């Protein structure tokens, strides 16, 4: 039972803590897990989250930054005032919990449909597009000399990687071919500046409350690259959840997103953002194909995975809307 290890762990590094309770697994495959639990403390329970690779799982997928880097990035972001959970403890072998870290749990909503529809968020919604622009600017300004070692890829290398992923699926899709050609023809070349890129900044990874954005989660795809990638990814239609006329995450307009970014002292290159939006749409489509392939080959033979495979066609219509829009 994980609560026994957690209890031993928190007693060692959290002053006054007497144990851990209410542990529940939130998500994760075999190699990476997320758990929520409460630290039992005389001043009242402290909400916490454990992110870990269980014992015996060391190797992270090639694109992942790794849990140690994730912990370091979240702590840096927290210190710089970017909404992010505070990292409370980085696991050591004595914790007997595998590798990873424990962070503060931030209450709020991550389910996009609720954020975009429920009354609770009505006051926050009109401000969110501008706010996430400001947060992205803060994230892109994190001091590079303090960053952990991260992969670095240019737009051209990314196109090459997506093309390999797509070809390995053996899944002929004329619309994806068209998108790959378009990306090659519109490759903006190396970015003037390279910054930290979150890599998965979108609905689902943003904790939102009635007061607005409270935390940015899931830094596992963080890398060094073109900062416009994050602005393009958050505009991908797949994260608008029906609010298709509000490109910035279903919250608001590109103009509001860009205004928030520029008000925080950084410049937007709108053409590069569009390039990354097309790239992001194709990226999600190819990921749907990957789900289909994993469903077929096992071991995760789940219905959910099968159905995500059938969502690739959503990205095909979105690519056509971007690349071959119909009149009116």
């Amino acid at each position, binding site marked *: 039972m994980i609560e026994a290890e957690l209890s031993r762990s928190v007693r060692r590094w959290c002053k006054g803590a007497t144990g851990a309770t209410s542990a529940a697994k939130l998500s994760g495959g075999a190699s990476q897990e997320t758990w929520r639990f409460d630290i039992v403390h005389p001043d009242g329970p402290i909400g916490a989250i454990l992110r870990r690779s269980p014992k015996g799982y060391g190797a992270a997928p090639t694109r992942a930054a790794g849990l140690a880097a994730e912990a370091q990035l979240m702590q840096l972001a927290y210190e710089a005032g970017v909404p992010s959970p505070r990292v409370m403890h980085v696991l050591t072998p004595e914790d007997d919990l595998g590798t990873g870290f424990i962070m503060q749990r931030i209450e709020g909503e991550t389910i996009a449909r609720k954020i975009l529809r429920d009354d609770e968020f009505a006051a926050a919604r009109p401000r969110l597009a501008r706010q996430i622009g400001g947060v992205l600017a803060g994230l892109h300004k994190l001091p590079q000399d303090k960053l952990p070692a991260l992969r670095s890829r240019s737009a051209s290398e990314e196109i090459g990687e997506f093309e390999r992923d797509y070809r390995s699926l053996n899944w002929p899709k004329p619309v994806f071919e068209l998108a790959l050609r378009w990306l090659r023809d519109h490759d903006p070349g190396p970015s003037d500046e390279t910054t930290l890129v979150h890599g998965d900044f979108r609905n689902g990874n943003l904790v939102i409350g009635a007061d607005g954005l409270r935390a940015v989660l899931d830094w596992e795809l963080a890398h060094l690259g073109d900062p416009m990638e994050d602005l393009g990814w958050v505009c991908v239609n797949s994260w608008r959840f029906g*609010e*298709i006329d509000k490109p910035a995450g279903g919250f608001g307009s590109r103009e509001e997103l860009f205004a928030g970014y520029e008000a925080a002292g950084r410049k937007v290159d709108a053409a590069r953002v569009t390039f990354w939006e097309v790239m992001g749409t194709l990226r999600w489509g190819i990921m749907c194909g990957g789900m289909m392939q994993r469903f077929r080959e096992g071991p995760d033979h789940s219905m959910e995975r099968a*159905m995500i495979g059938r969502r690739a*066609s959503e990205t*095909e219509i979105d690519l056509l809307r971007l690349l071959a829009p119909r009149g009116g």
Partner: protein
Amino acid sequence: MQDEPTPIELTKTVADFLRGDIMPLISGHQAFKLRVAINILDLVTRQLTQEAGSDAKEVERLRALLSMDGSVIELNRALAERIAKGEVDLATPGLAEHLWQTTMDKLAVDQPNYASYKRELGRGG
């Protein structure tokens, strides 16, 4: 020839049973999974109903576009290759219309409630 009822009638009756009789009895994660299962049956029912007609029209368009014959998968493979080689692009007469029609037919089966699809359907092609 197989006997009746047809596969469409069979998947539909199972989906209706799960939706009407079983759904109200369960909750939590099992209810979520049941909803996914019902969505799968609904998708399969739509595909069985629409696939033959839309595939036949897709093959017809592909034959005209590529001046060759083959199964729907072979023709799609050939089109994908020609786009990859740059022999065919959006300036090619008929390509954009073909991709739009094919994609609309897919969404009608996969995700008829997807907002982009509903918007484009409203345009009336």
